[in-house]
């Protein structure tokens, strides 16, 4: 095979990795740009932005993607000027950069597909480049600088750099050498001054000789650019706090190394802090959220193909079943040692399962951050002023669920923006703040995650909703359901009109699709609305879809499984304790309160020997507590969830099937659906 062929092969194989990484970089760029709008002088953000663009350009270069390289180069030039303080961020510039980032995303996504680049796109691109060049070539001098360096320092070209580096403890163990870095830098020009910082080195008696405690400060006369200087440190980025300043400033005394996050110029050079009063924002305070929010974390992750991980999880599911089977056999043989051995084995399997499922967890904050852009643009189009907050972005959820919940969430967010939040004038007239608040909150509960969208807008206009429901026949005209029920009407299919459909990824997503998507994830929706005050939409989702901790029950020969976290208690009830009313609805008295119940035998027309004693499993659902009448209680187990076959999807009250240790199939009960059945007339659901 010729070398050209093997090159082409390499590129074909590596391209998906490039695209996936480049996508991450562009997402990081968008997130950073939005953060930058709030903190225009945050040095760390500007540096990270530049690095992301630089990385995309560099990788694209390796793959010969000249369009990406050329376009990104212009963006990089502007970002470089911004971090040198030559150009300040304005709202127009921010919008321009966001649009440029969109174009980079487009170019990366269509890297393999020449035909996708239409004349319109080329025009758009040319227009963006023209705008970029107008800014970068137009601003020759430092106008209103937002750089933390106050003195009139000339921009980077040609003078030289003051380089301060504090090395991290792992530097030597990672195979790097501070001396060779210093030597390499020295080779780029003339070293005017050099100071090693050895203050942090412990006494010989106490030091760990293989841990690095060093730093240095160097003044280098050179024509090299900042990027060249930073390039010298590219292999040690994880083990180094670096600060590069244009020359012209005296070397500061040894800086205090920051414990975790990076350091802004101001904290490294205390002498400058005094001279830069108008940048007081970044001077004494450490940059707090920047490090964790949206900056691509280099080097600490292993990229894994999602389907390989799924294959392992599938095998684990089979392992859980096999383990349960072995346990069962052991118990039947009544051999204590064997039983204990299988118990121990099953405990280990459970740990492996939890660990592996955990691998699929991603922080929801990554997805939520994508909404910032939509909120910003939509609010601006609608003429509304909105403060968008994301709380609890660290909460983790299974990756596939995050992907499935993103579109419904986006629709709910847009709903708040379109209908909930009022325009500034209306808000002021109502005595509210001019700027509306929209919060996206993620929070863990036991075994589930709560995602809440909260706004302080108008709330749901129940009168109008009811009128529309009547006119569309969703509710019998004249009948007024409860407030909660009226609120939920907005999710009924046929309620939303065409204009209320959000166009996302080319599909229409209306409120009914939102509810369906959430329910297909075994989640639930709840609304709290106070007219004039605001709306709170609560979505609860299970943490994972694959394996469930369950409580097993039986009616006759049929086994059912309940999610363990739904079970509150179990009551033995003599048959006469359960009362039946004239509509055939069952209920039970429990500690003075009435508990509606559902009798599985009746519901599913199951054969059984009709025992006198019945057990009632009290469960809680999103409609409240209720009881499930069963005949036998079979204890706790871990069970693997298999989806319902198409034939059975229509059965109400069942959400899936589970394979037991002996190969039998148990039906997984859907507590929310069952709860709804308790309040309707007694009926039999065909099985």
């Amino acid at each position, binding site marked *: 095979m010729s070398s050209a062929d093997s090159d082409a092969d390499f590129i074909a194989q590596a391209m998906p990795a490039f695209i996936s990484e480049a996508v991450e970089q562009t997402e990081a760029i968008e997130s950073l740009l939005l953060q930058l709008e709030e903190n225009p002088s945050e040095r760390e953000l500007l540096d990270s932005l530049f690095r992301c663009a630089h990385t995309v350009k560099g990788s694209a270069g390796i793959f010969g993607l000249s369009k990406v390289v050329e376009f990104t180069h212009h963006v990089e030039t502007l970002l470089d000027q911004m971090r040198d303080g030559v150009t300040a961020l304005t709202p127009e510039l921010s919008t321009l950069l966001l649009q440029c980032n969109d174009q980079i995303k487009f170019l990366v996504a269509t890297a393999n597909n020449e035909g996708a680049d239409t004349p319109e796109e080329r025009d758009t691109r040319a227009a963006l480049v023209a705008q970029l060049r107008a800014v970068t070539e137009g601003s020759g001098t430092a106008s209103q600088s937002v750089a933390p360096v106050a003195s009139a320092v000339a921009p980077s070209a040609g003078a030289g750099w003051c380089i301060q580096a504090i090395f991290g403890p792992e*530097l*030597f163990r990672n195979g790097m*050498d*501070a*001396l*060779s870095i*210093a*030597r390499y830098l*020295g080779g780029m020009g003339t070293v005017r001054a*050099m*100071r*090693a910082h*050895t203050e942090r*080195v*412990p*006494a*010989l*008696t106490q*030091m760990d*000789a*293989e841990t*690095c*405690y*060093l730093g*240095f*400060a*160097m003044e280098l006369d050179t024509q090299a650019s900042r990027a060249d200087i930073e390039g010298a440190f590219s292999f040690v980025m994880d083990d180094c706090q670096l600060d590069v300043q244009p020359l012209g400033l005296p070397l500061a005394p040894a800086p205090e190394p920051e414990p975790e996050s990076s350091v802004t110029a101001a904290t490294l050079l205390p002498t400058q802090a005094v001279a830069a009063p108008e940048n007081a924002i970044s001077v004494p305070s450490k940059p707090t959220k920047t490090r964790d929010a949206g900056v691509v974390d280099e080097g600490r992750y292993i990229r894994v193909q999602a389907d390989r991980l799924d294959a392992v999880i599938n095998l684990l599911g089979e392992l859980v079943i096999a383990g349960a089977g072995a346990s069962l056999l052991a118990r039947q043989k009544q051999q204590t040692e064997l039983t204990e051995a299988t118990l121990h084995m099953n405990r280990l399997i459970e740990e492996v399962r939890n660990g592996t499922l955990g691998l699929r967890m991603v922080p929801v904050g990554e997805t939520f951050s994508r909404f910032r852009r939509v909120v910003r643009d939509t609010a601006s189009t609608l003429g509304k002023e909105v403060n968008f907050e994301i709380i609890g972005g660290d909460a983790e959820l299974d990756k596939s669920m995050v992907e499935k919940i993103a579109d419904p969430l986006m629709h709910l967010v847009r709903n708040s923006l379109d209908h909930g939040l009022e325009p500034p004038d209306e808000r002021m007239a109502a005595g509210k703040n001019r700027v509306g608040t929209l919060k996206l909150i993620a929070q863990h509960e036991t075994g589930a995650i709560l995602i809440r969208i909260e706004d302080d807008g108008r709330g749901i206009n129940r009168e109008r909703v009811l009128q529309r429901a009547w006119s569309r026949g969703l509710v019998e005209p004249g009948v007024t359901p409860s407030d909660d029920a009226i609120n939920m009407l907005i999710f009924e299919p046929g309620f939303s009109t065409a204009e209320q459909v959000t166009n996302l990824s080319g599909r229409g997503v209306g409120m009914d699709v939102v509810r369906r998507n959430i329910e297909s994830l075994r989640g639930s929706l709840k609304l709290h609305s106070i007219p004039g005050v605001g709306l709170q939409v609560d979505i609860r989702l299970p943490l994972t879809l694959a394996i469930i901790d369950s409580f097993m029950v039986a009616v006759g020969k049929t086994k059912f499984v309940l999610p363990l976290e739904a079970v509150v208690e179990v009551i033995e009830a003599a048959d006469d304790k359960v009362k039946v009313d004239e509509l055939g609805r069952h209920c039970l008295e429990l500690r003075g309160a009435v508990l509606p119940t559902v009798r599985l035998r009746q519901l599913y027309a199951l054969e059984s020997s009709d025992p006198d004693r019945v057990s009632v499993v009290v469960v809680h659902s999103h409609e409240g507590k209720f009881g499930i009448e069963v005949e036998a209680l079979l204890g706790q187990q871990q069970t693997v969830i298999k989806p319902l076959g198409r034939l059975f999807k229509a059965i109400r009250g069942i959400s899936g099937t589970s394979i037991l240790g002996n190969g039998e199939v148990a039906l997984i009960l859907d507590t929310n659906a069952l709860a709804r059945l308790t309040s309707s007339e007694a009926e039999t659901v065909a099985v």
Partner: protein
Amino acid sequence: MSQEFELPAELTIYSVMQTRDALLAYADQARSASDAPLELSARDVTQVDAAGLQLLAALANTPLSWTLVHSSDVFTEACQTMGLAHWLPAASGEAEVTA
């Protein structure tokens, strides 16, 4: 009468653990013998890296004082590159390094 401590030919990350132990032993011995500053020689050093230089910095950060009596070309260059030229023996005499 002073004993010199000869720094090893390879004063790098690979040898820092042993060199540190040797230095500590030497320092203990020398201190019990006299109060004079320790004398280190880098005459034999042919390879040096930042980890090696750090070792000497650690020595400097103890209450003991030491001086560099001899230096090889390699060691001299390393000290200058790293900004530790003040350790090197001055043309006119020995530089004394204190904590």
